[in-house]
């Protein structure tokens, strides 16, 4: 009888509990505020109106500042600037901006500005507006000498990019690359440095023998590279401002693959002086050399990780070239790429999120990246015969060399493989791009 009662009590308790829960649920659904979750953004680039800047005074011939800004933002792959011909008005200051109009045109941001010439200098006053929030998110002035309008324009592009995306812009960074021209059976290698858009290119070194692997010092003042000018590969450092060069590695055999440490005090090098290609660390000031790898296989293409603690490198110790990571100098290297039989020349981004590299799939060579968090390997280029990836300092873009109609060209893509932008072709092959650092 007791058991029966307990049973009965259990029944009624459960019933009460159920009723309570139901009523609570009903109550909670009744009271809970609707929550709409947005997990995907627009697939397209951000619409922005770069209104031609108002000008007062004589402006130098050539590209307009706003045109350069527009081209910069387009190249990033993240923006979709509005054609100036489609603009309803051409404001140059806040009072002239009618947000309704820009909203009607589907624009998110409006950049307006004025250029003023004063002597040999050009001053720019520019403002960036968020059309929907009807707020000014940027209002600055900047100036440059009249023959450096491009510098001014790239600076404005950087500022606009950062204000909208939260990442620093890279439009003021420089690009180093090697061109190869063959004229009348004579080959000529040229090491050049240009703006990111390929403009203002300057030859820094010319040689009949190969020039390879230019690498920027972290301060953007020097390049290290491999030159065969002495008949064999020798590593030089080259101060761009003065043109002063230094032979930093001229050992028997191979001297190659220079990579600067983040502090700019040492270089990673690949030397075969001990019989086989190994990676060494050269302290530039003292000339001290430390061997970092020791394996009968090829170890080369060293690159510091973003923190400057460990290195990525290429080794064929597993049979074919693969990328390895040595977490600390002297630690046991760990293979990180497995996606195919050929993965080489690692280039980590500045955030420590991804490593970009050359990846062979079937018969083609692409640029791929590996997510260091989850090990996911993704091919990000659609072209074939791709080489020499170099990541932008903000990690958003990637430049690499590829073949186009039998010649080598440089292509910029967004780092996730989105928009692609081919740099204007110079004469002959363009190869070995190296994306320079952001110089403040």
């Amino acid at each position, binding site marked *: 009888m007791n058991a029966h009662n307990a049973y009965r009590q259990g029944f009624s308790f459960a019933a009460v509990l159920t009723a309570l829960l139901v009523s609570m649920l009903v109550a909670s659904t009744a009271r809970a505020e609707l929550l709409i979750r947005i997990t995907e953004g627009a697939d397209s680039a951000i619409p922005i109106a770069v209104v031609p800047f108002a000008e007062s005074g004589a402006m130098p011939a050539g590209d307009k500042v706003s045109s350069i800004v527009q081209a910069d933002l387009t190249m990033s792959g993240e923006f979709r600037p509005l054609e100036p011909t489609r603009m309803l008005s051409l404001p140059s200051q806040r009072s002239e901006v009618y947000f309704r109009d820009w909203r009607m045109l589907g624009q998110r941001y409006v950049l307006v500005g004025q250029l003023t010439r004063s002597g040999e200098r050009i001053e720019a006053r520019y403002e960036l507006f968020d059309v929907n929030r009807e707020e000014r998110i940027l209002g600055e002035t900047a100036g440059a000498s009249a023959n450096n309008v491009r510098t001014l324009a790239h600076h404005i592009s950087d500022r606009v990019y950062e204000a909208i995306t939260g990442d620093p812009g890279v439009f003021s960074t420089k690009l180093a690359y090697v061109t190869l021209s063959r004229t009348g059976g004579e080959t000529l290698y040229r090491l050049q440095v240009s703006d990111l858009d390929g403009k203002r290119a300057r030859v820094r070194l010319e040689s009949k023998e190969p020039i390879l692997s230019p690498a920027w010092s972290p301060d953007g003042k020097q390049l290290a590279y491999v030159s065969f000018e002495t008949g064999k590969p020798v590593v030089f450092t080259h101060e761009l401002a003065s043109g002063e060069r230094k032979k930093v590695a001229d050992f028997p055999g191979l001297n190659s693959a220079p990579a600067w440490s983040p502090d700019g005090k040492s270089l990673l090098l*690949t030397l075969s002086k001990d019989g086989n290609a190994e990676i060494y660390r050269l302290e530039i000031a003292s000339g001290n050399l430390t061997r970092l790898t020791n394996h009968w296989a090829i170890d080369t293409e060293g690159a510091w990780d973003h923190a400057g603690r460990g290195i990525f490198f290429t080794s064929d110790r597993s049979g074919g070239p693969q990328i390895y990571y040595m977490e600390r100098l002297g630690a046991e290297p760990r293979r990180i790429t497995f996606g195919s039989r050929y993965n080489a020349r690692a280039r980590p981004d500045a955030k420590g999120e991804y490593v970009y590299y*050359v990846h*062979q799939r079937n018969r083609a*060579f692409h640029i791929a990246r590996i997510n260091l968090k989850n090990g996911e390997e993704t091919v990000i280029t659609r072209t074939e*015969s791709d080489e020499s990836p170099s990541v932008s300092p903000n990690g958003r873009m990637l430049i690499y060399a590829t073949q186009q109609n039998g010649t080598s060209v440089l292509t910029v893509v967004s780092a996730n493989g989105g928009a692609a932008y081919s740099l204007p072709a110079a004469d002959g092959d363009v190869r070995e791009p190296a994306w320079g650092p952001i110089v403040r």
Partner: protein
Amino acid sequence: MKFSVQSKAFAMLLSVGLVAGCSSTGDTMEDGTYGSDVAAIDQDGGSTVYGGADGDGVSSRGLTDDERQAAQQQAEQQALRNITVFYFDFDTSEIKQEARDVLVAHARFLADNPRQKVRLEGHTDERGTKEYNLALGERRASAVQRFLVVNGASRGQLETVSYGEEKPAVHGSSESAWAQNRRVELVFE
């Protein structure tokens, strides 16, 4: 063309009957043009070319056996040493079977001429990364260097340099071009 010189050299090599030991091609067949050329010579050659050489031997011009043998050997060596380019398979630095006798001849020559210096230039095809290819060319040159040292050459006579993919023998992106670009060249100074 280097290639026809090479072919002649191979024909001569066959004519003096040394080919018997190096008839194995097999794996090297996949090595584009070079592999197939070698195979073709092997197939044409064999007994026919060998027979012709024998005839030469029979109609000797009254030299003594020793003299004849020395002359023959000298000719032999000379013929072998005309070959100065050695080819490799993709992403390997393994010296092919058919290159060994030639390299032995070079090694003997270097041993006999200690003042002779030679530059071993390693090359790769255009595929893969430039720096890795630089190391791969270096490894190929080193492989040849080791082989020569083992067979009598002195290390001081030998200098290695790798150009990686920078100095192709043949321009182009075909299997044939690649096969001809994966090589070590001996440059006598």
